């Protein structure tokens, strides 16, 4: 942290730091997600680079005050370019003992911990699982390790709002804004973005101006408390990041996907028909798109996952863009229908926002363990195009790319997002919608020469939708004769059609960009990743390169087909490390296809990689201490040749 006093507001001096990681934690009803998103919006607006990690329980309202019910929101904001939500927490805001207990271990030594002292009483301490008579805030060791600030947030908030005439319950709901105001003061942030939001949301949308006013008052009271109370010796300032000129907004992966899908549909001049069954963490895509009726978007909340994928297939057969969205268990339910989409060669898209599995697993936690399900989870030899965005903003680009591929090649495309990308946010340079290439859809041939399964240069069959006269035809799940599309049980035809379905995927490979490693084109180690691990891998490789190591990174946005030059790239490095949030699914594919001894850093702990974990793995790979294991797993953020993961 670079220090330097800039100005003084109140009595505490202002200290310049290049970045800070702040985590808001409280009961799931405490409004921590709102406090966190507001802090993110404000930080983005003042020009920082930002990356966020919301972390909430699967239960909507777990018993109040328990560790199971703790909801957290972490934000990394910086004066430099950043790619992850940060490894360690510089400042924790804990609204109750349970939140303190759940998150204190992630705070750096000497880090700031602001606690809502009002809640640290007997009952809450017991609910959090602390033993009778113990209060961690009085623990000497804890006070030595962290800078603990005991602020009676509940009481101060009540006093600040005593004259609003609101009930005690409503007043209590504003305490997140009091805490947010205090942290705004501590990090030298303006209040106007949040005030604008509160007035707009509570005042105009919910038509409750008194609630808006109370929240604004709580926010300001928190800010003034910081200024007035002589509690805090120092404040922090994070300067603007060197971001390319342009207009930006903050965007989450789910928002980006929704906007990308609409954009793709518009570029193809088709109606987007999004068919989905609510499932965490994909539901926000449905919510976002349902609010876009005035852009011509149709959403359909189906009765189940199977109906969702089938109606998307029907929509594509019907001549528009059918898309379905889900998470792991839902993808499993859609498998049979995806086989139908593959054999009928219809252009449609499946979004799978991955979460912890198997089965119901960890619904609100991130994981990358559906890669093999997406690749192979269907009966028969049933290849499908698989794409994976690398960051929240990349979800926008990948969605457009998926639409382009689906229409050009007449086949279904799977997008593998994940919980971290879906809910995480980053700044997004707002694009000019006229800057995208149109998505051309080949016109179907004339009725005289029409065959449902004729092939163009990409091996695509024509798309003749009901309503087109003279092109009436029947498709379905039974094997079709190539060219005519009639049902065929002929052995040679089935071989030909199976080969064709694979050859179509290879054709997609002719349109995707060559893989270019970040760093040097060759060297001692290539760290190969896919999906949401991009930021951690890139930062860790950057650090290793700064230390002089010959390490490069390569990231796969196309999983099927793989970039054509991948084998060649792999061959230019002595060793290959594949970090994944699963037990080694890409590693299995790479080892099987390229016969190389790739090693894996694998973790399934519901959270993204820390940069530090990948750095440790890089060190073990480079200094020859990795050992014989095909993969290692960080345990409590430590990677060693002993930390074998299976």
């Amino acid at each position, binding site marked *: 942290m670079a220090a330097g006093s800039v100005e003084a507001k109140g009595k505490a001096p202002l200290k310049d730091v290049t970045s800070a990681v702040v985590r808001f934690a409280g009961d799931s009803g405490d409004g921590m997600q709102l406090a966190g998103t507001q802090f993110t*919006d404000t930080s*983005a607006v*003042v020009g920082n680079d930002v990356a966020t990690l919301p972390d909430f329980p699967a239960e909507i309202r777990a018993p109040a005050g328990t560790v199971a019910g703790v909801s957290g929101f972490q934000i990394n904001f910086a004066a430099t370019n950043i790619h992850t939500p940060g490894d360690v927490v510089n400042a924790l805001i804990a609204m109750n003992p349970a939140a303190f207990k759940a998150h204190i271990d992630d705070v750096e030594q000497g880090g700031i911990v602001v606690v809502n002292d009002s809640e640290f009483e007997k009952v809450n301490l017991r609910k959090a699982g602390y033993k009778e008579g113990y209060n961690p805030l009085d623990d000497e060791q804890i006070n030595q390790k962290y800078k603990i600030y005991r602020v009676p947030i509940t009481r101060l908030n009540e006093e600040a709002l005593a004259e609003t005439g609101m009930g005690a319950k409503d007043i209590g709901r504003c305490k997140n804004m009091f805490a947010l105001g205090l942290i705004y003061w501590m990090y030298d942030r303006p209040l106007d*973005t949040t005030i604008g*939001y509160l007035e707009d949301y509570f005042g105009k949308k919910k038509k409750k101006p008194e609630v808006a006013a109370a929240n604004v008052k709580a926010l300001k009271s928190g800010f003034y408390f910081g200024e007035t109370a002589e509690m805090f010796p120092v404040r922090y300032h994070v300067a*603007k990041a060197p971001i*390319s*000129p*342009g*207009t*930006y*907004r*903050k965007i989450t992966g789910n928002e980006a996907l929704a*906007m990308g899908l609409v954009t793709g549909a*518009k570029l193809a001049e088709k109606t987007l*028909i999004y*068919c989905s069954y609510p499932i965490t963490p994909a539901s926000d895509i449905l919510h976002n798109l349902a609010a*876009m*009726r*005035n*852009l*011509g*978007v149709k959403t*359909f909340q*189906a*009765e*189940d996952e*199977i*109906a969702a*994928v*089938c*109606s998307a*297939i*029907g*929509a*594509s*057969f*019907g*001549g*528009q863009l059918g898309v379905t969205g889900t998470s792991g268990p839902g993808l499993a339910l859609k498998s049979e*229908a995806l086989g*139908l989409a593959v054999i*009928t060669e219809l252009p449609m898209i499946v979004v799978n926002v991955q979460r912890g599995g198997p089965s119901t697993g960890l619904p609100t936690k991130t994981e990358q363990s559906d890669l093999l399900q997406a690749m192979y989870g269907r009966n028969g030899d049933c290849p499908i195009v698989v794409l994976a965005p690398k960051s929240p903003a990349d979800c926008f680009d990948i969605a457009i790319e998926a639409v382009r591929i689906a229409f050009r090649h007449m086949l279904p495309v799977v997008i593998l997002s994940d919980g971290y990308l879906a809910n995480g946010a980053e700044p997004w340079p*707002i694009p*000019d*919608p006229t800057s995208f290439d149109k998505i051309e859809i080949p016109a179907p041939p004339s009725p005289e020469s029409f065959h449902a399964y004729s092939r163009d240069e990409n091996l695509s069959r024509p798309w003749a*939708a*009901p*309503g*087109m*006269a003279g*092109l*009436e*035809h*029947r*498709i*379905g*799940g*039974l094997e079709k004769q190539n060219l005519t599309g009639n*049902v065929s049980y002929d052995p040679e035809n089935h071989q030909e059609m199976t080969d064709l379905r694979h050859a179509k995927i290879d054709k997609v490979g002719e349109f995707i960009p060559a893989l270019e490693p970040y760093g040097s084109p060759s060297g001692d180690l290539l760290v190969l990743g896919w999906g949401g691990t991009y930021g951690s891998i890139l930062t860790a490789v950057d650090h290793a390169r700064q230390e002089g190591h010959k390490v490069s990174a390569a990231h796969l946005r196309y999983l099927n087909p793989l970039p054509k030059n991948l084998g060649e790239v792999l061959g230019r490095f002595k060793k290959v490390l594949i970090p994944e949030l699963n037990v080694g699914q890409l590693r299995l594919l790479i080892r099987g296809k390229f016969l190389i001894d790739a090693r894996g850093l694998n973790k399934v702990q519901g959270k993204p990689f820390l940069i530090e974990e990948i750095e440790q793995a890089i060190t073990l790979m480079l200094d020859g201490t990795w050992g014989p294991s095909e993969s290692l797993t960080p345990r409590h953020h430590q990677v060693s040749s002993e930390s074998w993961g299976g």
Partner: protein
Amino acid sequence: MTTATTNLDVPVLTAKDFASDQDVRWCPGCGDYAILNQVRKVVAKMGNRKENTVFVSGIGCSSRFPYYMDTYGFHSIHGRAPGIATGIKLANPELDVWIVTGDGDGLSIGGNHLMHVLRRNVNVHILLFNNRIYGLTKGQYSPTSEEGKKTKSSPMGSIDMPLSPLSIAIASEASFVARAIDVDKNLAGVLERAGKHEGSAIVEIYQDCNIFNHKAFDYATAKDAKLDNILYLEHGKPLVFGKDNQKGITLDRTRKPKVVTLGEDGVTEDDLLVHDEGDESLAFLLSRLTYPDFPEPMGVFYRVEDDCYENLLEKQVEDAVKAKGPGNLADLYSAGDTYTVKD
């Protein structure tokens, strides 16, 4: 192919025009043939265009149906035709969409979808071929097989309670519910009314599987017996049946249906229930009448006019455009807080 032209120069199509070039491969003597012929006639009579007509099916003998119609067709996966058909209607509400399903496809594996396509009132016509057996998998009992039915998978007799497809349809808020028999004269009329209905229409068609469940509906089709065992429904007319139209249905003092004979015990036509297609409770009561205790009703049980799902969705799009103006991508991208970074 063209038999006549109207003043718009659009050729009028015949049943023959709706026959595809594929050989029909159902077992000789299967009830499906009769239904196929009637459907071809009805779509021609309705003035359908081939390009605007879509047949969607799931899996089962009946689900081969789309291959035999020279229209657009989709032979999908087991039980899922309602999902596919709903997607087609969302993409293009103008299309005339038919679903062909069976007692296994529609009531067993696809039961959930059937319920939901009906309650949404998607404008599709559902033909449920009920042969009370699994034909394509060679003769296991189905959700409509009678209790005690001995099949390959129930050698000691089925212990499953059968369900009534039409009771389910009525409970699922279907807006048109009817029944017909593959070889019966009323099939064409019922199909035509289903085809013209705006909303989710379901027609249960008793269909003879002459291989695995032959003569399952003998009581309803045999010349000498059928008039005593089925009852033709007519809107506004009393529920009478029997060879000489001498029998009828009335309610006893506990509101339970009862078969009575006109002229006996002073019973006159005025004592009989009168059919009302708009009466949901009556429709449900009719759906519970089963042989041999009662004659089984044929014809339209229930019909109500209601908005169709795909039109309501289109209207929401129109309303949103009216309220917010036609959305554009630039505004969409810039919604919420934006900030500008200068050089």
